[in-house]
């Protein structure tokens, strides 16, 4: 055993994560000590402060390249880009969560998660206007995990941050105020499958540790270069490790949880999962494959091609016949995972920056789209069935047009951010020698465009349904979140250059 030496920790470089962590802990303390009446606003303030602080810290740190905490964390361009993205998404999601305006019937979350659905206890809780303020600390802990995930420079930190981001999400999924059975079912499914996938991830970690004798990404890379180790361990480990990460990004055949969980979870949480989780998980996936296994590209590419093709096809094909808007968006997020995988597989600098950019554009549009979903309501909650959306665009043109914009962006129509993102990823794919993959991508995008456009047609061309859903006037928070998404979607479609440059400068990884 070698002598212990204290690791040097560059606390300034960790500032974004420390901000979030502090906000989360403060959130716990608020729940413990602040009187009930003030808790809600105090929680919002703490969460937003933490997120804004993290965003500022990211901006100040821009350009940093450092490996700190004894090679456990790498603060480099991609990390900061993704952390900034996650902070922005966190702000958007917190705003969605925070909206408890009467038009939304008091928000999306259960008065008391522990009370049984339909019980007197539950009714009493709702009447007393009780609310679960733990949502915010849970959200912040999830954000913390997401911030660490793409920064992890060794597999152990990767595993721990994976769990830190997952565990609060499992709980958050089960907290819906309405349709609680669906919500609880979503939580159980997500939890069991998530834990199952973590077990695979962990076994992969163990095998790679056995292969390289270390869990640091650079160490594993070094071991792959010497080629003097047991290859079977390496590839088994790599495969199992990938399962864990592919599960989180929702790639087929590990995608089954996505539609069910996105459907059942409270919509603001769905927005958060569909955007921020995906960003973080792709960040980690990119780092692992670009840092540790870049030299083995020829070996893992065939499998990755299969996964990417399957994901794109499954996502866009299954979405075609969905009749629920929320579920359709869930499948669309599967398809988008496939598109981003094209950028990952490109395995070059433009693949990395293209993926980073795509993540930013896709995730913000997604937050906006789910934000709109929270506004279209029936008496018993959100009206997500497609037939209820008929003629919506005629009755409330603004919300209809905003949602149409998001759908067009998701479909990748030019002059929206979605086109720029898709373009960046696909051109990287072509230059990375993955032309057939790009062709599949283009074809599946054409299929995907069909179902996005179908919703638009439904909203604008179909006769409005007689007792159609009410389009709630958004509270300030939701409006702010959606407005942010609209602005980004348009600006990144028309003037993407500054952000594309940022993504270009962010690459490559530093380790």
């Amino acid at each position, binding site marked *: 055993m070698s002598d212990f030496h*204290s690791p040097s920790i560059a606390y300034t470089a960790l500032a974004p994560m420390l901000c979030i962590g502090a906000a989360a802990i403060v959130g*716990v303390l608020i*729940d*413990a000590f602040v009187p009930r009446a003030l808790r809600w606003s105090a929680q919002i303030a703490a969460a937003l402060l933490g997120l804004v602080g993290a965003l500022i810290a990211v901006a100040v740190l821009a350009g940093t390249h450092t490996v700190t905490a004894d090679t456990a964390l790498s603060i480099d361009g991609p990390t900061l880009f993704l952390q900034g993205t996650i902070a922005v998404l966190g702000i958007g999601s917190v705003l969605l969560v925070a909206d408890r305006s009467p038009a939304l019937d008091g928000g999306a979350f259960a008065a008391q998660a522990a009370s049984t659905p339909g019980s007197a206890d539950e009714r009493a809780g709702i009447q007393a206007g009780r609310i679960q303020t733990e949502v915010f600390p849970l959200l912040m802990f999830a954000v913390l995990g997401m911030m660490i995930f793409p920064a992890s420079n060794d597999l152990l930190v990767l595993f721990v941050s994976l769990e830190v981001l997952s565990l609060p999400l499992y709980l958050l999924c089960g907290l819906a105020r309405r349709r609680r059975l669906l919500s609880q079912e979503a939580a159980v499914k997500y939890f069991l499958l998530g834990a199952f996938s973590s077990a695979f991830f962990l076994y992969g970690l163990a095998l790679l540790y056995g292969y390289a004798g270390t869990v640091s990404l650079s160490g594993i890379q070094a071991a792959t270069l010497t080629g003097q180790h047991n290859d079977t361990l390496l590839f088994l480990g790599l495969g199992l490790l990938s399962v864990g990460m592919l599960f989180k990004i929702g790639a087929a055949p590990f995608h089954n949880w996505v539609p069910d969980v996105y459907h059942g979870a409270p919509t603001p949480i769905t927005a958060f999962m569909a955007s921020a989780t995906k960003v973080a998980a792709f960040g980690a996936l990119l780092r692992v494959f670009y840092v540790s296994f870049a030299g083995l590209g020829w070996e893992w590419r065939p499998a990755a091609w299969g996964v990417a093709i399957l994901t794109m096809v499954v996502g866009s094909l299954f979405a075609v016949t969905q009749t629920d808007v929320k579920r359709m968006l869930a499948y669309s997020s599967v398809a988008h995972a496939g598109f981003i995988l094209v950028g990952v597989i490109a395995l070059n600098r433009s693949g990395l920056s293209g993926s980073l950019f795509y993540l930013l554009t896709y995730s913000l549009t997604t937050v906006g789209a789910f934000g709109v979903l929270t506004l279209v309501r029936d008496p018993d909650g959100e009206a997500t069935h497609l037939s209820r959306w008929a003629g919506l665009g005629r009755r409330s043109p603004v919300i209809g047009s905003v949602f149409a914009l998001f759908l067009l962006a998701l479909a990748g129509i030019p002059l929206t951010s979605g086109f720029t993102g898709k373009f960046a990823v696909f051109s990287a794919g072509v230059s990375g020698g993955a032309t057939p993959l790009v062709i599949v991508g283009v074809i599946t995008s054409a299929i995907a465009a069909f179902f996005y456009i179908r919703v638009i047609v439904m909203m604008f061309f179909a006769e409005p349904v007689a007792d159609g859903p009410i389009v709630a006037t958004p509270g300030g928070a939701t409006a702010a979140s959606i407005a942010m998404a609209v602005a980004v979607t348009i600006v990144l479609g028309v003037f993407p250059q500054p952000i594309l440059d940022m993504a270009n400068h962010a690459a490559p990884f530093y380790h």
Partner: protein
Amino acid sequence: MIPIVVLAVLGVGFAVFSIIAGSLAGPKRFNKAKLESYECGIEPSPQAFRGHRFPVKYYLTAMLFIVFDIEIIFLYPWAVAFNKLGMFGLVEMILFILAVFVVYAYVWRRGGLEWD
């Protein structure tokens, strides 16, 4: 080697013998007191729900125990290598314990430690 094997065989044999012999030889007269959970002679409280389900309070307490128990796992190696870890280790461990205490405060304030 052989003494160990002999000892093991004897030990296992004795255990098996006692259990079998006890069940064969002992009288089988059951009453309420014998069927109850053993709680040092104190009346177990509260009773299990309709005979087969325990109130959620037990679960809560057990969970809190697990969570706070598990911190030992980090304290123990730190204590073993305390000398080598020095100031850095001390500071980090204090931070860790503070974080655990925040959660403890939360549980305490929100009534997680109250039995009723």
